[in-house]
């Protein structure tokens, strides 16, 4: 048993070292981009750099254009009617992409997706640098549809100097955490807004925050789990799982991934069997990510109905809390934030359905914009930690539908952030997607569930048993559908059991008391007689 464990640990360690070797050493390149003549030119634009890249990397753009980073549509959904992807969904953050393209597409891996006319087949519009820049100087300008600043610009009071595209082109490398993080740490339009498990703290994390990415320890890159093949990056896309075969397996052929915990840790990762018996019902994340947003706050609620208040000069303003989180913004409304909190727990089978434009909603209840699938009765579901983001957002009460407001745009375009008029904003947004709008607006409460999977803590910090197996206020207090030892009981069985126990105790005490009393009486009587 012991040798078995040690052997398993040894193999595990070896596989980690092998992984590190694969990334760091074995892929040391014989190509030195800083010495390529084609990259010595003075690049004026992003597409110009891409053209140079494609001269050697002839397949690169084609590969990228097949990925969700380019299409913003989930791969298996492309041929289906129920299309799922960033393009189609509604959320309760900045609501929707359409009509707001130049702002949203500053995180598109391309140049120039400013409206519906964007050419998704033009290879020169692929942005190689946002993922491959190793200088840390290349940044896409927030409102230029994916282009970097080509001249000195100002956004939200900050000056953006144009990056030296030639220098960046000569210093390309495999993506680092900062490349992925440039977009993924800022999901929802700001750091930590959308995800309770992705923010700048993962750029240089300590062991307590992330035992795998610990920059002084295992120092995993994002791709060590989100494996890559032909520019495809392993990961879930809404309802499409990261792999169809989520079992313990070493990657055997290119394209196989080891994104799941069990890909490396196996199906019996704990020394104690009782813990392993949890695996079929409890996700690894539920115990090993004891708290969400451990170092930086994440947005918990967004009330759009509060937007539009202007200061005494008629200007929009922002308010921050003591920690520097924006809690009010005239353009966006009121927010709440939370840090280092115990997440909610739900049954989750890895699928998700999203409310999209045209779906009827029940406006008498809180609208669940994304419905994570799964239930206690489904053997394929496990308990997952989630962050619940609560919203109050604009909708069409006559049609009982969520709507797309145009938020970003110049004055007079109807954009809410310029004109501060909801009716005109929704009219512009719905016209953009060719959908009807009754002209009435209201605000409806919404919820979105965000599964938590990053920021895995060291084993010693895993959630202790008693935080779920407890009668009072346990982490799973609200999770129904199963019998949880320590939390649940058959109340009347317990009552009957303890009542019988008390009666039996009372019975033996009464019996014993009577025996003693009789004996005393007899002794007294005996003495009198004597």
């Amino acid at each position, binding site marked *: 048993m012991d040798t078995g464990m040690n052997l398993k640990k040894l193999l595990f360690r070896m596989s980690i070292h092998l992984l590190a070797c694969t990334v760091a050493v074995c892929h040391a390149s014989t190509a030195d981009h800083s010495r390529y003549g084609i990259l010595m030119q003075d690049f004026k634009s992003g597409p110009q750099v891409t053209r140079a890249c494609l001269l050697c990397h002839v397949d690169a753009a084609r590969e990228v254009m097949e990925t969700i980073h380019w299409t913003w549509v989930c791969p298996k959904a492309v041929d289906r009617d129920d299309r799922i992807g960033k393009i189609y969904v509604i959320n309760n953050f900045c609501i929707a992409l359409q009509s707001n393209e130049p702002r949203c597409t500053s995180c598109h891996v391309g140049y120039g997706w400013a409206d519906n006319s964007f050419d998704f087949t033009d290879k020169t519009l692929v942005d190689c640098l946002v993922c491959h820049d190793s200088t840390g100087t290349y940044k896409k300008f927030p409102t230029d549809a994916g282009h970097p600043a080509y001249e000195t610009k100002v956004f939200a009071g900050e000056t953006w100097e144009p990056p030296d595209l030639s220098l960046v082109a000569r210093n390309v490398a495999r993506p680092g955490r900062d490349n992925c993080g440039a977009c993924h740490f800022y999901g929802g339009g700001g750091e930590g807004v959308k995800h309770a498990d992705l923010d700048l703290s993962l750029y240089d994390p300590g062991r307590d925050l992330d035992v795998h990415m610990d920059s002084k320890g295992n120092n995993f890159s994002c791709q060590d789990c989100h494996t890559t093949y032909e520019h495809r990056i392993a990961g879930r896309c809404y309802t499409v799982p990261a792999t169809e075969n989520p079992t313990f397996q070493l990657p055997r052929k290119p394209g196989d991934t080891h994104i799941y915990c069990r890909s490396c840790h196996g199906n019996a990762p704990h020394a104690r069997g*009782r813990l392993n018996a949890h695996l079929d019902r409890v996700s690894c994340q539920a115990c090993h990510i004891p708290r969400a947003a451990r170092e930086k706050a994440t947005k918990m609620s967004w009330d759009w109905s509060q937007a539009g208040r202007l200061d005494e000069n008629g200007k929009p303003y922002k308010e921050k809390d003591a920690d520097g989180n924006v809690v009010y913004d005239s353009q966006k409304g009121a927010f709440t934030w939370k840090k280092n909190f115990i997440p909610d727990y739900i049954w989750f089978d890895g699928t998700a359905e999203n409310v999209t434009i045209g779906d009827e909603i029940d406006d008498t209840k809180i609208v669940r914009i994304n419905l994570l699938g799964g239930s206690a009765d489904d053997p394929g579901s496990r308990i997952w930690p989630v962050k619940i983001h609560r919203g109050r957002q604009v909708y069409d009460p006559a049609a009982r539908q969520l709507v797309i407001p145009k938020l970003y745009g110049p004055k007079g375009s109807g954009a809410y952030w310029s004109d501060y008029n909801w009716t005109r904003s929704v009219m512009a947004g719905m016209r953009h997607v060719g959908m009807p709008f009754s002209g009435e607006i209201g605000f409806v409460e919404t919820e979105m569930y965000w599964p938590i999977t990053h920021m895995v803590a060291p084993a010693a910090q895993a959630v202790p048993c*008693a935080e779920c197996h407890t009668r009072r206020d346990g982490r799973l207090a609200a999770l129904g559908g199963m*019998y949880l030892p*320590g939390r649940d009981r058959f109340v009347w069985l317990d009552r*009957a059991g303890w009542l*019988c126990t008390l009666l039996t105790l009372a019975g033996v005490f009464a019996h014993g008391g009577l025996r003693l009393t009789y*004996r005393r009486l007899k*002794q007294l009587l005996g003495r009198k007689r004597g």
Partner: protein
Amino acid sequence: MAQRLLLYTRFERFWHWAQAALVFALAATGFEVHGSWSLVGFEKAALWHNTLAWALVVLVVFAVFWHFTTGTWMQYLPTRHHIKEMLRYYLVGIFENEPHPTKKTELSKLNPLQRVTYFGLKILVFPVQIISGFAYYFRDDLAAAGIAAPIGPIAFTHTLAAFLLLLFIIAHVYLTTTGRTASSNIRAMITGWEETGEDGQSGGPRTGESGQES
């Protein structure tokens, strides 16, 4: 002179006390896992409960072997004889210092009420408790083997049997005080020897105190 009778052999005494200790510890940890009280914390309670359960199973295997190889199992066959007398004794006679209606011998150590109670424990409560415990522990393996092992009914059964054992322990401990003297039964289970009194009757009138008086 007082006669002595070797009622309980060495293994029987070891088995009894080991089982007593294990049942007490299993009850303490089991009810903690159940959420009834908090002594060592859920994690340790669950760990100890599962470990002690294995110890109990080992002990039970030895005990079953002992019962059959020594023929002791016959001691536990229920009888209808003297049941009425036993009940009358506990309800009336015991207060009057009447002699115990049955006699302990090497061949018949147990009175009719003990026989029926212990028989029930051995044939029903202990097996149910051990089997439901195993089903609780191995329910994933059972499910994998295609045997439905829903945790709710398993937990219900295990809790029910635990309460029955608890009730038994209370009554059992109290009834040890109803021997010839209050401690003679317990002493017998420790030393193995029971003082049977001059007339060779066990559990007879408590001649100790009342005898001196008269």
